[in-house]
Every structure is written in structure tokens, then in C-alpha cells.
């Protein structure tokens, strides 16, 4: 425990360092409408507003384009075309393939062709509608299986293996094969994509962008303008949600606005209306997965051949790493003694699918979780027993398909604790009984685990910087490379710095993430925000603490070891003398000590040899498990999630309220992905579910009444910041328990003999179809057993 020293009656009780449920740093502003997002900033005088004209077809070429009516439309000042771009025209995040605008080839519906700027946003949007563009239309590739068969890929396939899957499969007493389609997901950040670009000196620009990756926006804007990166500054105070959708895909609008600033010499804002945002930006990758799995009579897996194929859309974007992460999670929590995993990156004529919370991990996990249920039905066991049987275990059962050892595995203990607290066994028995007498409604229960690897798999991204200034009144400004999108990163950073300096967190001000304060930053992604930036900020704080301690030791003539920072005061010598932190700041300043420091951090231990598909891509794993109960209407396929119990591993929690918020929010978002959130493209490749009227994210009554969330508080065995664990993405996958519970409920109509096929999202329509198929299969099975 922290050493709490009595400091007299005037001292304020200092809470809110780490481990405390401190409120979000912007909470009071959020509720008052005072938190400023990019679109809320008062624009500089003369700002122009942009609207993007995009392709209405999915594949083909532009035959002709007449924009004269656009130019003559009310309020229009200028139009941006591909030829107006002075520098790079490809703004692909990692690989080429994402032209900022097209003048010829069309690869997806929603591909930007031109940008209009006008005096008002309405005028710009109306002008776009005046464009006359004729296309030569070609048949688009829209089906992931067709693309896979045709080997139409955006990047080469990747393979991993451990042991000999084929031999094990051939020798296994039992063997199952199956395929599944896992749907994609629209991010539906409440704040759509937006950028405001203001001209600066020497050809430079100040870019306000709602982005998870300011450094990449900075670099791409510089490349598009053909100026050195040092001319561009990106400022990002907060996003109204990101979820991965603003990792690579926030850049285009900033680049377009910058090119228009260059052309018009006026500030330019581009904010995408919701339909345009949903039409033009990429989503979570839909996946097509298969397994061929061999096991014994107990359901213990002996060999597995797994294939995951991501529907990447028209370009690579981040798909290479996303499909890799799907492969890294195709084992989820289970030891596959002989395994081969293939990962394909299929090209289709849709928007380029992109990062989304879990980054391919959830889609990869779905195939092995499907297998667990299927094996259980095949051997006549409860799926939880089969899951527990196959968990990673002690030496000999601890090697992943990519040869990383699973160390510090908490899962069995965590699952057993949750099984107890959720009363899984008794509820399961009661539900089985209930289902026998309930003709129309059927209930289901399932427990699924999560093991999620923490670190960017692209190794160089695992670094971070921070900048701390202490001013002479003792107030502190902290800046770091991470971005705030609601996840509470800034709140945790404040707590970390406060803890490191033993001061009141209220003394700390976090400012907008800016590329001129901390350069060359990584995206706030991969759940890494706190792990990386928290350590960097802590390192900066420790440097300053050391400088102040040294100054005091020198001038108060005491040993530096005796200088002690406690509760906003600094003690030295025999601890009978002290001064406030603020006085110490002034004291250090007057003794010519620099009170500004940068901190830096890079993740240790990680490596991955992609050619051999071997290594330790993850610093550590985060674990969790969830029990979900559902009730299904077998007449309509409607269902309801009635109860959820979660136990999740966050290491030593930096902020239990923020962590719980991530767990609950991630779970509900995952539940939406697997249930009501259905992306539909028509047979010409146009997105039909292009607004909240047709694309249904969970609403308030989808939150289950029974929603017990527990933190499995155990210090991280690795040296992370205060031994916490990343929490952004892992809880998302806890929602697989909902899908498994739906399958459990449907399976009841076959007396749990059939494992119902249920692709996702499991809309009421898919559930009803699964009910009818299961009924049919059960009838056939009965027929066979009678004949």
C-alpha cells in the first residue's frame, strides 16, 4: 500500500492516483455540451465546407464527367480533382492501393471522385448532386468465396503450423468439418469522420482531425501536398468514438481538405454526413472460415486444419495484419496439438475493410468456438466441459500455433470462478428442464473464454513518447502520443503521472494530442494506448522527479535517497522538513533545473519471424470469460439476451470504473456484431444498410437486466505500467457467448444432438432459419436411427 503520511490539517486527501475509480477527465464537459469536437470548433473566418462526390457503381471506369453544373451551383467556390493533387495521390496506410480520388478506374461503390467546397455545407452537398458522371460498368466481385476460389487477393496468403495436422486428423477417432460466414461491422462512431484544415506559414497547415493516428495523418497530408512533414501539425483533442474506424480511414478527408486549402488559400472543413460516412469508409472484415478437426471420444482435440479468409474489400489497407491477427486467435484459449492455419486476404469490390476493435481476432476466434460447440454435440457433452478439456495447460500443452508459449495462464481458475459465481451448472440443468415443456420459447446458456494477445504485431509500432512540463506554480501539463476516443486513456495517464509524482491528479492538465509535442507516434489501437503511452508518461515523470530530488538533495544538503515524494509534498533528510510540490517546482526552477522532460517506452521481449511463422508476437495475454443466457422465439426467430455474467482479467486495474466501462461497452458492441448489426450490399455492390434506420446497433433495452461484471484482479506478471493489463479489445470477444447461447437454445429442439449452423450476424431471420434446419436435421436423424 501507499505510504500515507500525515501532512497537517491543510493537506487535501489525495485520491485518484492509480487503482481508483476516478471520473473521466471530460465527464463534466460531456454532460454540459462543453466538450469540443472538431465540428464544434468555431471556424476561422472564410472557412469553406467540403462535400465529396463518389462513385455510384462498384466496378468499372469513368466514361465521362461533366461538373459544370456543380461549379455553377449556389455558393460553390472550387472543385478538387485528382489532377489537382501536387504530391502523392495514393494515401494507402501501409501498402499502395488507396487513391485519394479517382479519375478513371472504379473499384467500389463510394469511391471518391471529386470534392466540392462552398460557403456552406448544405451548398456543397447540393452541388455534389449536380454532377453528371457516366460509367462503363463491369461485373463486380462481391463474394468472398468466389474471390478465394479465384485466388483474387490483396496480399499473399500466410500459413502457420505446429505439429502435423494431416496425420493427426487421419488418425483421430472422430472428425468434423464445417464452414462459417462471419459478418462485418460498421463502426458507427457517433461522431462521423471530420477534418478542419487551416493554412499556416511556409506552405504548412494546421490540421484538426478526428483520428486515432495523428502522425499518419500528418505524414499523408505532407505527402499529398509534397511538403516536408515538419510543415504539418495535427491536433486531436478528442474523438466521438473511434473503434478502429479512425485508425487509417480518417486520413482521406484531412488530405482532401488540405489539398483544397492549398487551392483556395482558405480554411476548409470536410465532415461526412452519416450516409456518406457509411458508404465511403471501411468496416470490420467479414470472414469466411472453415475447420477440419479431429478429436477423441472425450472431445479432446488431436488435430486441426483451419482456414480463415478475410473479405478485405478493394485494397490492402491494414488487412495483412488483420488477417494475421485472425490467425493468431484461431486457437483462442485452446491447445491444438497438431495444427495448420491458413489465412487469405480476399479482394472484393467493396470499401476497403479496416481496423475494428479486435482487429481480426474476433473473426478468428469464431471458428474455434464453433468447433467447441460442434464437438460437444458430437460427443454428447456440455460445451463447457469440452472447452475446459481443451484449454491451454501446463508444459506440453502450452504452445500456440505460432510457437509462443502461453505463460501465466489464468483461464482455468478464472472460468471455474465464473462457473461458480454465475451458477452455470444449476442454471443449465434448469434450462434443459424448462425447454422440455416450453413449446415456442427456448432458452440457451453458454460460457465462452477469451485469450487475447497484447502488442502490435507490426513490431515497430510498439513504442511511445510523452512530454511533461511542470510550471512554476506546480501545475503540470502532460502530453503523449495516444488519442482520447472515450476509452479513458487520458484519465488513466493522469492517474499514472499523479502516482509517479505522488501529487493530486487535479494538478495535471492533459492537452490535445499534437504532432508538434510528441512526434512519430503509433496509432491508438491494439488496446495499447495505456500500456505504451502510460509507460512513456511515467518515464517522463520519473525523470522529472529525479531532477527535483537531485536539486533538493544538493541544496538542502541531504542524501538523494532521503528525498521522498508523498501526498503532494516532498520530504527530505530526517523527514522533518518538507515543502509542497508547487514550492519544489519553483525551487527547482530558481536553481536552474529543467522542468520539462520527454519520456519514451518500447515493449520488451517481442519478436516474430513471419517467414517461419514463429515467435513471440505478444508481450502477454489478457483473459476473460462470459456466461450468457438467451431466450429464443421459434416462431419468429426473435430473441433476447436475458442475463450476462463476466469475469475479466485487467491485471492490477488502473481505474476500475474505466475498465468496467470498457468491458461492458465492448461486450455490448460485440453482441451487436453477432446479432442485429447486418451489413447488406445489393447484387451491384451498393451498400443498402447505410444509415441507422437500416443498420441496427444495440439500443438501451438490449442491455441485459442481469449484467454482472467482475474484475479478475491479479497483477500482470509482466512489467507493464503498474502491472495493469490492456482492456480495450479483449472484452469485445466475450460476446461470442451470446452466439453460442443462441445455438444452445436452438439445439434444444433436437434434444442437443444437432449443432445448429448459425452464421452471423444471427438476426431473427437467421435464427428462424437455423430453427427450421435443426428441426429438419433432427427429423432426418430420427428417421435414420429408426430405420
Amino acid at each position, binding site marked *: 500500500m501507499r505510504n500515507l503520511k500525515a501532512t497537517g490539517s491543510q493537506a487535501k486527501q489525495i485520491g485518484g492516483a492509480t487503482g481508483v475509480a476516478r*471520473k*473521466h477527465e471530460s*465527464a*463534466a464537459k*460531456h*454532460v*454540459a*455540451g*462543453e466538450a469540443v*469536437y472538431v465540428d*464544434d470548433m468555431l471556424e476561422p473566418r472564410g472557412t469553406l465546407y467540403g462535400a465529396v462526390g463518389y462513385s455510384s457503381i462498384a466496378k468499372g471506369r469513368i466514361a465521362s464527367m461533366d461538373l459544370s453544373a456543380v461549379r455553377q451551383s449556389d455558393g460553390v467556390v472550387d472543385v478538387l480533382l485528382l489532377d489537382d493533387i501536387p504530391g502523392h495521390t495514393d494515401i494507402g496506410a501501409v501498402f499502395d492501393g488507396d487513391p485519394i480520388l479517382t479519375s478513371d478506374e472504379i473499384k467500389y461503390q463510394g469511391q471518391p471522385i471529386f470534392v466540392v467546397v462552398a460557403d*456552406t455545407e448544405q451548398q456543397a*452537398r447540393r452541388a455534389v*448532386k449536380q454532377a453528371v458522371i457516366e460509367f462503363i460498368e463491369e461485373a463486380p466481385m462481391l463474394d468472398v468465396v468466389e474471390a478465394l476460389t479465384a485466388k483474387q487477393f490483396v496480399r499473399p496468403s500466410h500459413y502457420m503450423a505446429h505439429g502435423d495436422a494431416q496425420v493427426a486428423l487421419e488418425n483421430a477417432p472422430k472428425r468434423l468439418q464445417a464452414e462459417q460466414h462471419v459478418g462485418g461491422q460498421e463502426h*458507427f*462512431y*457517433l*461522431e*462521423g469522420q471530420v477534418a478542419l484544415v487551416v493554412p499556416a506559414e511556409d506552405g504548412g497547415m494546421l490540421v484538426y482531425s478526428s483520428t486515432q493516428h495523428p502522425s499518419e495523418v500528418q505524414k499523408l497530408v505532407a505527402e499529398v501536398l509534397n511538403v516536408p512533414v515538419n510543415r504539418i501539425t495535427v491536433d486531436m483533442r*478528442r474523438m*466521438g*468514438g*473511434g*473503434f478502429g474506424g479512425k485508425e487509417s480511414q480518417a486520413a482521406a478527408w484531412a488530405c482532401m481538405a488540405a489539398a483544397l486549402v492549398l487551392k483556395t488559400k482558405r480554411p476548409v472543413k470536410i465532415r461526412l*454526413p*452519416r*450516409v456518406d460516412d457509411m458508404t465511403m469508409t471501411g468496416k470490420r472484415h467479414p470472414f469466411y472460415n472453415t475447420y477440419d478437426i479431429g478429436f477423441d471420444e472425450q472431445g479432446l482435440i488431436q488435430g486441426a486444419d483451419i482456414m480463415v479468409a478475410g473479405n478485405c474489400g478493394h485494397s490492402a489497407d491494414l488487412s495483412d495484419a488483420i488477417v494475421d491477427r485472425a490467425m493468431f486467435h484461431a486457437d483462442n484459449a485452446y491447445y491444438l496439438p497438431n495444427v495448420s492455419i491458413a489465412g487469405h486476404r480476399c479482394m472484393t469490390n467493396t470499401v476497403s475493410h479496416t481496423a475494428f476493435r479486435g482487429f481480426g481476432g474476433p473473426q478468428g476466434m469464431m471458428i474455434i468456438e464453433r468447433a467447441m460447440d460442434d464437438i460437444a454435440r458430437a460427443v454428447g457433452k456440455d460445451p463447457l466441459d469440452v472447452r475446459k478439456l481443451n484449454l491451454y495447460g501446463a508444459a506440453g500443452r502450452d504452445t500456440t500455433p505460432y510457437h509462443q508459449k502461453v505463460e501465466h495462464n489464468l483461464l482455468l481458475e478464472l472460468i471455474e470462478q465464473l462457473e461458480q459465481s454465475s451458477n452455470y451448472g444449476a442454471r443449465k440443468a434448469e434450462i434443459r428442464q424448462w425447454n422440455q415443456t*416450453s413449446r*415456442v*420459447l427456448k432458452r440457451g446458456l453458454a460460457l465462452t473464454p477469451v485469450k487475447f494477445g497484447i502488442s502490435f504485431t507490426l513490431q515497430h509500432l510498439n513504442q511511445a513518447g510523452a512530454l511533461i512540463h511542470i510550471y512554476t506554480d506546480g501545475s503540470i501539463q502532460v502530453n503523449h502520443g495516444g488519442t482520447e*476516443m*472515450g476509452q*479513458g486513456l487520458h484519465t488513466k495517464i493522469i492517474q499514472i503521472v499523479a502516482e509517479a509524482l505522488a501529487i493530486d491528479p487535479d494538478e495535471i492538465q492533459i492537452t490535445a494530442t499534437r504532432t508538434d509535442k510528441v512526434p512519430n507516434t503509433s496509432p491508438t489501437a491494439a488496446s495499447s494506448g495505456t500500456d505504451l503511452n502510460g509507460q512513456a508518461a511515467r518515464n517522463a515523470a520519473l525523470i522529472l522527479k529525479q531532477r527535483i530530488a537531485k536539486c533538493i538533495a544538493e541544496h538542502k544538503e541531504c542524501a538523494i535517497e532521503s528525498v521522498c515524494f508523498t501526498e503532494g509534498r516532498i520530504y527530505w533528510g530526517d523527514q522533518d522538513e518538507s515543502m509542497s510540490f508547487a514550492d519544489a517546482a519553483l525551487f527547482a526552477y530558481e536553481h536552474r533545473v529543467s522542468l520539462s522532460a520527454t519520456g519514451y517506452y518500447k515493449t520488451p521481449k517481442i519478436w516474430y519471424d513471419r517467414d517461419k511463422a514463429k515467435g513471440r508476437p505478444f508481450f502477454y495475454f489478457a483473459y476473460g470469460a462470459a456466461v450468457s443466457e438467451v*431466450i429464443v*422465439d421459434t*416462431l*419468429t*426467430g*426473435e430473441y*433476447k439476451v*436475458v442475463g450476462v455474467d463476466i469475469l475479466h482479467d485487467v491485471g492490477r486495474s488502473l481505474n476500475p470504473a474505466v475498465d468496467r*466501462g470498457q468491458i*461492458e*461497452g465492448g461486450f*455490448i458492441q460485440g453482441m451487436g456484431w453477432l446479432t442485429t448489426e447486418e451489413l447488406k450490399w445489393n447484387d451491384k455492390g451498393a451498400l443498402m444498410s447505410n*444509415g*441507422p*434506420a*437500416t443498420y*441496427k*446497433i444495440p*439500443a*438501451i*433495452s*438490449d*442491455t441485459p437486466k442481469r449484467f454482472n461484471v467482475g474484475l479478475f484482479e491479479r497483477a500482470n506478471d509482466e512489467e507493464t505500467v503498474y502491472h495493469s493489463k490492456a482492456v480495450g479489445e479483449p472484452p469485445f470477444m466475450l460476446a461470442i457467448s451470446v452466439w453460442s447461447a443462441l445455438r444452445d437454445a436452438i439445439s434444444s429442439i433436437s434434444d442437443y444432438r444437432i449443432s445448429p449452423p448459425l452464421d452471423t450476424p444471427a*438476426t*431473427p*431471420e437467421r435464427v*428462424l432459419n437455423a430453427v427450421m434446419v435443426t428441426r429438419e436435421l433432427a427429423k432426418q436423424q430420427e428417421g435414420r436411427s429408426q430405420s
Partner: protein
Amino acid sequence: MIRFLMNDREVCLDHCAPDMTVLEYLRTKAEQRGTKEGCASGDCGACTVVIAEAVGNRLQYRNVNSCITLLGSLHGKQLVTVEHLKLQGALHPVQQAMVDLHGSQCGFCTPGFIMSMFALYKSCELPSRADVEQALAGNLCRCTGYRPIIDAALSLAGKGSQDAFSAQEAVIYSRLTKMVQQSPQASMQDGLHQFLIPRNSDELLALLTQHPNAKLVAGGTDFALSITQQLQQPEVVIYTGRVVELLQIEESEESISIGAAVSYTDMQSLLHKHFVSFAEMLERLGSLQVRNQGTLGGNIANASPIGDTPPVLLALDAILHVRSPAGRESLPIREFFTGYRQTKLPPSGFIETIEIPLQPERILNVYKISKRLDDDISAVCAAFSIELQDGVVRHARLGFGGMAATPARALNAEQALKDQPFTEQGIKAAQQALAQDFSPIDDVRASGAYRLQVAQNLLLRAVLEQANPSDEALEVVQYA
């Protein structure tokens, strides 16, 4: 001129385009940007504001989506925005509750939630969890999973609803009343474009005769999409929200009569008294924001094949009382819908009231099937009005939405039900006949095959509910 209170400041507007929405006004004219745009289609609630109106002898506070509320409709009302809730630096109790219970993450949806919670706080002292879900179903949050928001709303239960607004209520009430008295002829225009606010049926008829192409707007919850999504600029908009005859509700022994401009919220208790399952379905029509504005007249005249009330009104044999330059006439609703978004409404005509006969011997079952329980558009909406005699069907009216180009009755199935026992066996022919009545299409919400299967299964659900009314809940919503 139109006049309204923007928080506590009076705004008078003469020159303004009729298509100006409250959200656009707030964000681009008034520079009040606490109110956010999430979708501009009334589906996410980020732009929620509260409108206070003088009703009876007090102020009534209701939440609406500012993105689909036309500015002109604010005449004589108070617009309360999120900026107005803080008093001298102190957060309002609903704001404080959201802060204390960690109800915001990214914060973008938060102002909208705050305003919906504020409306709940002003209208319900002891909200239950169901009340909270009802009040907030039109506000989407992508971060929290809603649990802390529900906790925040529930934490206010029983804490009283006396706040700074209560202290100001009498003052605001009299300012609003005076405003309307002083400006009886309210309108605004921008060149040839006009927003007109008639006060009675005669004025409405005169305006419609004068402007035969005018857009008639009540709640405007669908009409506004033509502005925010299709970017249309209507020339003349006539607002029915102050036409007294269209705001009446009447109840007699034989029927109930609902003015065409009565909001769903205002008809809820009357429907609950006579048609419980209709009222329960209404709780899932749109969101509270939409129900506070949307009207029965608008839902019917809009003639959308997926409107939720026409199937019920078809099953109930409702009668539309229509007025036009040719006079007044009564149209049975079964004759009203003539094609996709086509009706028998005469030129320059409008619906004054909707009359629903009371026939307590008939059992009404209404079902709404959609992907999401809250605030979703039906894949299938079904309403069955059945009269049984000794277990045999004597009368059947089956109204459906989502099955055809118009809301429609299943005439073949109705015929097949007649004189059959209302049992699983007895409805088999009717289930088959539904396939002759309808060939539903595949669209973004569901496939045609699913729609037909569900329509058939819903007949079975009605039979099972009839046979077993209390033993067992048959719908998952009952577990909600």
C-alpha cells in the same frame, strides 16, 4: 413572424427558409454546438433537445430529435438545449448523476442522453427500469453498453423533480402564452419559400387551396428526411401542429376519434384503455422522440408500406374523416391505400380525424417483428382482429405491413379463417392462403421468404395465445 424561446431568450424570425431544422439552426446560426449531429435522420438521438409547451396550466417537457424538427414548428414553445441545464456553474441533477455513475465515455451521444433524461426527470418522479428504457430507447450510445446510463437515470428516482426549471415555470409559461396571443398569424418566409401555421381547419383548407402543392407537415418525422437526406427545398410547408380540430381526442360508446395531428404520445393512454396490444406495439414505434412528434394522420397519409399503424387500423376497420375543397367525407381505411405511397386523399385534402369503432367482442393481437426491439422499422407488422363464437371464427380482419407495396389486408386468409375453429388445425388453410395474399419482397430488413414464414407463424402465435392466455409468455419481449 415566428416566435419562440431559445432557452430563456426570445427569438423572432421572419426571414428563414421553411426547411431549416432546429439542429441546423442551433449549430450554424445560433452557434450553440453542444447539441450534436449523429445521423440527421432521427435514428440516433445525439441531437435530442427538449421542447417545453404550455399545456393546461403548466409546462410539458418533451424530448425530440432536433435534426428532424422544423424550426417553424417551435412557434410559441420553449426550446431547451443542453447548454441551459447548468445553473451558475452547478450541474443539473441529471448531469451530476451521469458524471457520478460514469455514464459518458466518448461523450458525443451524451448531450442527447442528458436531454432525454431531463425530459424524463421533469415528467416522471419514480421511473422504473422500463420507464428509463422507454425514455432513452431513441438515444444510441456506442461506448458504454448503457448500463451506467440506466443506473444514472434510476439513481434520480424519488429524488424529486424540483430544479431551477420548476422555479421558472410560471414565468416561462406566461411568456409562451403571451407570445402566441401577440402573434396569432405566424409564418416565416425566404423569398417564395414559406412556412405557414394555420390555427383551424378552415384556415388550413384555405391555405391548401391557395397552395395545392404545399407540403403538409404534422410531426414531420418522415418528411424531414427529404430535407436532411435528399436535400430537397420545399417551397411551401403548412404545419398542422396548431390546427385545433386536428388536435382533438374524442371517446364515445361506439368509437374513439383521434385528431390527425395528435401525437402518438398523446393518444397512448386512450389506446391503452381500449386496445392494449395496439398501445404496446406503439411503445415500439420509433423512439419516444419520434412518438412525441409523429401522428396517426401523418402515418396514414404518408402511406408507407412499412408504417406501423395502418395494419392495425385496417384490422380495426377505422374510418378516415377527410376534408377537401369538395367538402367533408368519410373513407373506410381499407379503400384508402391505392398503390405504393398512393392514396385516395383528394387534391388539397387532408385527414381531420381517424375514427376507430369499439367492438369489444373482437380480440386484437398486434405483432411487430424487427431486427432490434427498440426503435426499428418492422420487417413484418401484423394486426389480427378476431371474433370467436364457441371457438369458431365469426369475423376476421388481418392487417399487414411489410408484406406488399401498401399496408394491406390478407383477404384470402380472412376468408379461409371464417367459420373455422381457431386452433392450430383450423388456421392451416389461412396460413396457406397468406401465400396467395402476399408475395413480399427481399430488402435490407428481411427476405420475402422470412416475411411470409413469419406472417404464417404469427397466426399460430395468436392461436396459442388465445388458447393459453396466461400460463406462459409467448413473446420474447415479455422477457425484456
